[in-house]
């Protein structure tokens, strides 16, 4: 007899969000982790959000997830990045107090009654015929469930490098984990190797802050959760310093001792997060690089120097760090290191993050080749929702590229795979103007409510907000004004005779909600947040309309699912080469199939007709 609907293996950011999502859906959920007190630990930089990443956190929040709430509770320096640019490219970010963040995640998980947290080691999966049935713990006990989500992070063959020193990291060396790794390897999933690095951690009490510039948070902090409006704890500033010619000389002189440059690392590192070795070599013409000194907590002296990750030996780290302004007598509390690990090619997953070859088994987070807390949590959310849906026999849910950054990320991963640790950027979203951090709830919360993963509190709060936004928009759209009337209200508009509504002119640069209220006095009765949101919604209307055609086609193609186990060899007229490619890629819908290299309109046509055939037969 099964004890749980859903089991989540791992308590990192993917695991925590997955467990919370499954539990919100009403599933009896177990989170199995080696250390309960390490759930929600931030193992890299002490910050949440940023450009693209902030969008992901807002989307998780729109599904009533926990990351946004925890970040708000732990946030000690909130900044809205790109504040002076358009709302489509603004991203909320905060420095987070490590301890407070961990505590917030653990407290939020404790609120779910249907969630059980188990401290145990997972030895293997219970596998039926192409179907997962639960897990076996290291002590030999069996726990049965309909769905298992693996959020194993970097545990697969992890190796930590400091200079020419290496040691096994993660879970390698434990026999039971090897069994699990072997089982996963037997699923015939492609594996790749990636690397990532961290900077040395510094003792903030040994930094000479008085000579450094500081970066405060925003005067009006922007929260992650749509339900919060102000920070929970006192706010701090970060310090700013930079490397110099001497720093670069030290690094250059010792390149041979770096794990990466000494030839000890084969994994591919991210281009957007180069080590200090990389920076010195690849951008040799730059005589300095910026470093942000980020405090790790309100009552923690540790400082994270963002910008100088490294795999140089500890003595060289000591030398180059002390060459930097303000750090002349700094003490390193923990040297920086590089870590190499295996990931599974995410092209083996369907868009619900379920392993194509094994029903009921889901992967989320770094195991899929991504990097970052936010990317991991967003995948955890999708895996958690779908595991719960699977357990109750309901159809799985996938998010489209046209409606969310989460959809963009999962489509990128499952269609293209990864060649470096995958991180979200706003430039990855082709419908960026429509997918904004400010409207994540408008895009997704209704879907979330329909799925049944939203609390009553958020449902009520969202319904009220949506009603007000719709009322404000129709109020502003009702009346059209002549250019003369608009000019009288201070709106710069050419006297072309065209009549425009207040909503129309909110798309013009420099037109504010105040202008709109001058034209339509009743608009002033809406509170400021609704007025500002209405302006954001109006700003890109014409661009979004232009993109609608593409979006419609995309959605139609996504909606045409190719059933699992579809027989491509049974299609006369399809070239051998394409048949082989289709068999290898196993696209889950026509959109994915259309992106296969060499796909022609004719072949796609054939494919569609065969995919549709059974349903037509049924109809006839």
């Amino acid at each position, binding site marked *: 007899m099964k004890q749980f609907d859903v089991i989540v293996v791992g308590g990192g950011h993917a695991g925590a969000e997955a467990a919370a999502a499954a539990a919100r859906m009403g599933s009896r959920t177990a989170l199995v982790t080696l250390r309960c007190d390490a759930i929600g630990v931030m193992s890299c930089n002490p910050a949440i959000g*940023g*450009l*693209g990443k902030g969008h992901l956190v807002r989307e998780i929040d729109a599904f009533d997830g926990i990351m946004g709430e925890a970040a708000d509770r732990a946030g000690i320096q909130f900044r809205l*990045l*790109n504040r*002076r*640019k*358009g709302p*489509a*490219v603004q991203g909320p970010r905060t420095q987070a107090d490590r301890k407070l963040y961990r505590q917030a995640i653990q407290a939020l998980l404790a609120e779910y009654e249907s969630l059980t947290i188990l401290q145990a080691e997972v030895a293997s999966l219970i596998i039926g015929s192409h179907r997962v049935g639960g897990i076996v713990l290291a002590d030999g006990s069996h726990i049965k469930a309909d769905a298992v989500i693996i959020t194993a992070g970097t545990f697969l063959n992890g190796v930590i490098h400091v200079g020419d020193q290496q040691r096994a990291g993660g879970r390698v060396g434990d026999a039971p984990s090897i069994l699990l790794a072997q089982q996963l390897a037997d699923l015939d999933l492609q594996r790749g190797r990636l690397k990532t690095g961290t900077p040395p951690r510094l003792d903030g009490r040994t930094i000479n802050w008085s000579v450094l510039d500081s970066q405060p948070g925003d005067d009006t902090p922007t929260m992650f959760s749509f339900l919060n409006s102000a920070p929970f704890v006192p706010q701090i500033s970060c310090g700013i310093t930079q490397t110099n010619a001497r720093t670069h000389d030290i690094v250059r002189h010792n390149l041979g001792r770096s794990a990466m440059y000494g030839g000890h690392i084969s994994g591919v590192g991210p*281009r*957007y*997060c*180069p080590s200090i070795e990389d*920076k010195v070599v*690849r*951008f040799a013409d*730059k005589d300095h*690089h*910026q*470093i*942000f000194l980020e405090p790790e907590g309100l009552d923690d002296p540790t400082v994270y120097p*963002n*910008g100088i*990750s490294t795999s140089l030996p500890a003595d060289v780290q000591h030398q180059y760090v002390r060459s930097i302004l303000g750090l002349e007598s700094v003490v390193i509390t923990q040297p920086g290191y590089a870590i190499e690990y295996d990931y599974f090619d995410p092209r083996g997953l369907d868009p619900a993050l379920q392993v194509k070859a094994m029903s009921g088994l889901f992967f989320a987070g770094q195991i899929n080749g991504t990097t970052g807390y936010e990317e991991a949590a967003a995948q955890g959310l999708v895996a958690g929702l779908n595991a719960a849906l699977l357990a109750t026999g309901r159809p799985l849910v996938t998010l489209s590229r046209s409606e969310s950054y989460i959809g963009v990320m999962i489509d990128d991963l499952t269609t*293209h795979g990864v060649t470096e640790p995958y991180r979200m*950027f*706003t*430039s*990855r979203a*082709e419908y*960026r*103007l429509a997918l904004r951090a400010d409207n994540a709830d408008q895009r997704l919360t209704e879907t979330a409510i329909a799925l049944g993963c939203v609390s009553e509190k958020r449902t009520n709060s969202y319904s009220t907000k949506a009603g007000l936004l719709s009322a404000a928009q129709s109020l502003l759209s009702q009346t059209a004004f002549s250019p003369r009337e608009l000019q009288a209200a201070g709106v710069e508009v050419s006297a072309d005779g065209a009549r425009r509504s207040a909503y129309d002119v909110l798309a013009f*640069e420099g037109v504010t909600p105040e202008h709109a209220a001058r034209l339509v006095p009743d608009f002033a009765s809406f509170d400021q947040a609704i007025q500002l949101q209405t302006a954001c919604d109006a700003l*890109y209307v014409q*661009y979004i309309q232009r993109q609608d*055609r593409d979006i*419609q086609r995309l959605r*139609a193609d996504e909606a045409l699912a190719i059933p699992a186990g579809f027989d491509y060899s049974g299609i*006369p*007229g399809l070239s051998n080469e394409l048949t082989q490619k289709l068999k290898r890629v196993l696209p889950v819908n026509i959109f994915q199939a259309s992106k296969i290299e060499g796909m*022609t*309109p*004719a*072949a*796609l*046509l*054939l494919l*569609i*007709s*065969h995919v*549709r*055939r059974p349903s*037509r037969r049924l109809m006839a």
Partner: protein
Amino acid sequence: MDTIFALASAHGRAGVAVLRISGPHSHWAAGQLCALPPVRQAGLRVLRHGGETLDQGLVLAFSAPNSFTGEDAVELHLHGSIAVVAKVSEVLAQMEGLRLADAGEFTRRAMDNGHLDLTQVEGLADLIDAESESQRKQALQVLSGAIAEKVAPWRADLLRAAALIEATIDFADEDVPIDVAPEVLGLLCRVKEDLVAEQARTGAATAIREGFEVAIVGAPNVGKSTLLNALAQREAAITSDIAGTTRDVIEVRMHIAGLLVTLLDTAGLRDSDDVVESIGIARAKQRAEASDLRIFLLQQPGEAFDVASRPDDILRYAKSDVSTVAMPSVSGKTGAGVEDLLAEIASKLAPKTSSAGVFSRQRHLLALTTAEIALGKAINTLPRASVMPEVIATEIRVALNALEGILGHIGVEDLLGEIFSSFCIGK
């Protein structure tokens, strides 16, 4: 759902060209050109737009779901002239909600609406495959040369411009240059100027692929049809001593000095009370205006016609076998002066080919125009790059996507690659 249109018959010169329009706005769109006949009844209509007559032809309307695609649809059976089809397409493309169909899109819609069975789909797929295979080969040949040479630098410039803008967006917190506008402006202007120049050359490119039109124009009974037959070396047109024998435009395709040429024999130009002859004369004038080169057959010096002259018109005095009024002259009957005329046609067409661009298809032209318009908007927004970079980025992306349709795929990975190789990202 967009309303789409495309030429349903083979491209090029033919007796009849069928333009198919499908989608919710199809009846409305055709209704802008003429009074729509009742559904499923053919009606002869004159198609007009903005006071200009486009063509006369059969118009057929279909109502959903009883059409090829299962949507509301209209077929326009036009005269099979490239100029006419291009003009009507241009008018349709400018209508709200209408656009040129993508390859296979009519069939795709038909299938989405359950209007094709499997055997039909397979038959169609074979056809499209055959076509796309030959197109692919042609495309490869062209790509390996001229088009790639043209597009690659535009692509590189736009990619660089996009990367500069995107870097200020996605890495606002990092060591990236803040004021990228001057470099972006230079890049965008350069590409836009090239696009404008290239569009001006597409007309000649199309002519090389589809043939030049050379019209023979003159008074009735001056020997135009006889000359046509002499040039074509076959009895393509009926000849007689009766003035006004040729009433419609007669077309003969042939090669002159390696160039594909369509010779047009037209009705003799005169005032006529005969209704049918009048239509023929009007058509003759219209085709003479639209053709790439004209041969005027004259009876006497100073003879003038109701067709505006051009510097490269060829003048010949007619029937040199009967009377030599002036030089140069030609006789279709004896063949005297025909070689000389052919040589002059070749020498007049040759310069038109050298100015030809490499973008000869309507699809190419559409892509160039789309890209140019988007770049114009991006350039206009550049002064505000620090506050609305996302709008500039969107326009550059529209331009890149349009050019992408001509030359392979530009993915976001290319963009990120450009960013990461140019700037030191990673604070």
